[in-house]
């Protein structure tokens, strides 16, 4: 675990966090005040990154703003919607509510890492086939929660899909299509593994 506690993180995100001020004039670019940095090792979609991150950066910020992985979306900025869901060591987490330093040494999978060598994951295929996305903004989060679900429960029932994905809001209300998509992907995966066996 990193030296930043969740408590300090939460305290630090309030508007009260004021860095030391360096007086500067007018319309010139100013250097940001020194803030604590840490070098972390993140394995993102199979690629190892060594990154110097500010301790206050969230995992979502690092993925989107520094690694250019904009597939994970920010819907609420604070752990209420699921649009930013990624897998951290295989478990679905809200990347907006994780500090990047907490992910040091760990493995992150984002929506960009689902397809392998240009071949879509069965979940992605099913999401297309069953018209999961409407506006698509919740979709990457839905996919990652679905991925985590199928990883530990390859044969979910409808209720288990609903329960497993409760942390992901879809404002377009396309829940039924998402359920159908996940069940269809589970069926495909089951058929695939039978074929391989």
């Amino acid at each position, binding site marked *: 675990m990193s030296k930043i506690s969740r408590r300090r993180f939460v305290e630090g995100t309030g508007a009260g966090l004021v*860095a030391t001020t360096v007086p500067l004039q007018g319309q010139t670019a100013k250097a*940001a005040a020194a803030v604590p940095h840490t070098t972390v090792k993140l394995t993102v979609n199979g690629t190892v990154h060594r990154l110097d991150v500010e301790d206050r950066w969230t995992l979502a910020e690092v993925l989107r703003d520094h690694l250019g992985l904009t597939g994970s979306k920010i819907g*609420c900025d604070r752990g*209420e919607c699921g649009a930013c869901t990624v897998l951290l060591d295989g478990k679905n987490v809200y990347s907006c509510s994780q500090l990047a330093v907490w992910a040091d040494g760990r493995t992150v999978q984002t929506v960009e890492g689902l397809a392998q060598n240009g071949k879509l994951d069965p979940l992605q295929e099913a999401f297309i086939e069953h018209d999961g996305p409407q*506006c*698509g903004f919740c979709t990457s989060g839905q996919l990652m929660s679905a991925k985590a679900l199928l990883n530990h429960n390859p044969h979910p029932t409808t209720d288990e899909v609903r329960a497993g994905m409760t942390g992901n809001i879809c*404002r377009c*209300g396309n829940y039924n299509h998402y359920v159908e998509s996940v069940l269809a992907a589970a069926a495909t995966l089951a058929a695939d593994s039978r074929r391989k066996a």
Partner: protein
Amino acid sequence: MNVAGKSVPHESARGHVTGEALYTDDLVTRFPGILHAWPVLAPHTHAMVTRLDAAPALEEPGVFTVLTAADVPGEGDCGPNRRDEPLFPKEVMFHQQAVAWVLGETLEAARLGAARVRVDYEPLPALLTIEEAIAAESYHVGPVHLARGDASAIESSALRFEGELAIGGQEHFYLETMASIAWLDESGGVAIESSTQHPTEVQEIVARVLGVARHQVMVECLRMGGAFGGKEVQSNAYAAVAALGAWKTRRPVRVRLTRALDMALTGKRHPFLARYSAGFAADGRIEGVRIALYSDGGWNLDLSEPVLWRALFHADNAYYLPAAELTGYVCRTHKTSQTAFRGFGGPQGMLTIEEILDQAARRLGLPPELVRERNFYRGGDTTHYGQIVKDAGRIETIWQQLKQSSGFDQRRAEIQRFNTGHAHHKRGLAITPVKFGISFTATFFNQGAALVLIYRDGSVQVSHGGTEMGQGLHTKMQQIAAESLGLALEAVRIMPTRTDKVPNTSATAASASADLNGAAVLDACTQLKERLAPVAASLLECAVHEVRFGGELVCCDHGSVPFRQVCEAAYRQRVALFAQGYYRTPEIYFDQQTGRGQPFYYFAYGAAVSEVEVDGFTGGYRLLRTDILQDAGDSVSPVVDRGQIEGGFIQGVGWLTLEELVWDAQGRLATSGASTYKLPSWSEVPDVFQVSFLEGATERGGIFGSKAVGEPPLMLAISVREALRDAVAAFGAGGVVTFASPATPERVFFAVRRAVAEREALASPAGGAARR
């Protein structure tokens, strides 16, 4: 039909599932040196700004500049209709209104800078509720009138009653918050990437603020992560801030609201207060209604006037009102500027008449579904504004089919048995209809345009005036172009919506965009086929009229050539391979003075049956089953339309049962995130959910016989509210049941308490005697 009418994948489906589909704020890292904006928020609900000193903010490391009224080269007002939306207000009109914007090298710097801008305020008293606004006669609009017949008929009706219904608003909570990026283009103009339903209006407002002609401003919308009306006019201000920032600093500027800011700053669905009196015959037929609708417009006019009109137009829902006296007001309060939201006033108007009908039924001791049915429009009827109800017979057809397919009558009996056997849990069942007018009520908005480009290899680019927000508009446009030109879907690429491709567009709104832009796309494709046909005829050595387009080929009876070959030949023969398409809706008009006209091209119909179970101890409930039958005409894209129906219904369920906006006594929005504002989630989907389309529903005049489907299904959720009322009634002794909207578990709980108390009072000897 080859691709139209088929269930094809969403145009961006692959991009959505791979993360490659880009939204406005995904572009930030493509702009080196971009500045980030954060607003300075007023901590008052109503106040004068007496002093604003930005200097301390400039001391903050990383702050680049502060935007204030002094920076505006043009006119600092974003109001689309009235000039009543100052970008940098001197008078604060709602809690947390932005009075200045700080631009920083990082978002953090801008935020810290904003905290250091010194603003002095002189607080003023505020109006927070519709009742307060009525008492103070604080109106943006009103009274406006719409009437038919003589409503004094009520006075001689067998049943007369009056009442009041408070209808809550709704937060859009489009999953993608407001976002804009502006930069200066290579030739000194300003370019804006904006999450907006109305790029043309963003262009207009930005040009106004910068004091430049509109040709200096280009606005693009790639797609939106949901909008639901919330980005019809409300995107303007944020695009204007980004554009002004870019203009002043010569650097790209990003405005992206956090969720908390978006909820605090942007407008919502209008809360309404309906006051009514009604007269009914003993058999349940309406004899007359008087309805006054007061909407809470918030601090400025916004789209409140057409929203109010649509509410008045829909105060009949699917019912013939022989005598109606409707009055409308838009109240001016110190709240966010309430705005368009799926249904656009229609839902509030319809909820009011459904409330009246249910009350009449219970007072008369008739089944609510029977009272509803008795009042349906029949063929040849006109509305209270004088429009013939086209295809009125579909209301009855849908109703009967749905009652049949959902097993309505038999389930009524089962529910009665269940309710008799359960003292503390009651089930309720209701069926409600929807009739929703399609077209913008401001006639001039009803135009669509498109630009279709064919390249020599036979591939096609389509630009059209509509924006994609998840409703599947681009998918439909792709299908229409591919169908018309006889191509595969992949041969047609839908381009991002840009004001320099198609100018002077209307907002993507009023459910009409597929009709308007689809007809324009078809018009362009038809012109191109007319130009290509002679070329193909000469290649095929056949007559021009024999030429057909299909299967990537251009054919006649005895042969075919690939489409691409015809395009290459046409190019060499100097035939223009691009065309602009245009469409204006015929036959529609409305005169506000006389309150007469034909504001809608057609009506979209539907009905829903919902069944709920209420827990009398808690007021909690479960949506057990919903059956929907929707008239979507001959759907161009059934899978897209099914998503719209299900999603619209779920959003309506949210509005009517869960989503409650709470403002505290100081006018602060207490529900500022999904943790305090309950959105429909997985558990709110009905356990059984069946959606079907009305068969044989070709809409003459609709594109490929289809009908609009974006908004109408939202109002199918009224069936859930009515089912809840039915369940609550089962706790009581058959009296009327009222509760404000939304029917949250809390409200249902208290309604159950009242119903139980009524039954107990009747059961006690004294109560019984009193009643006699």
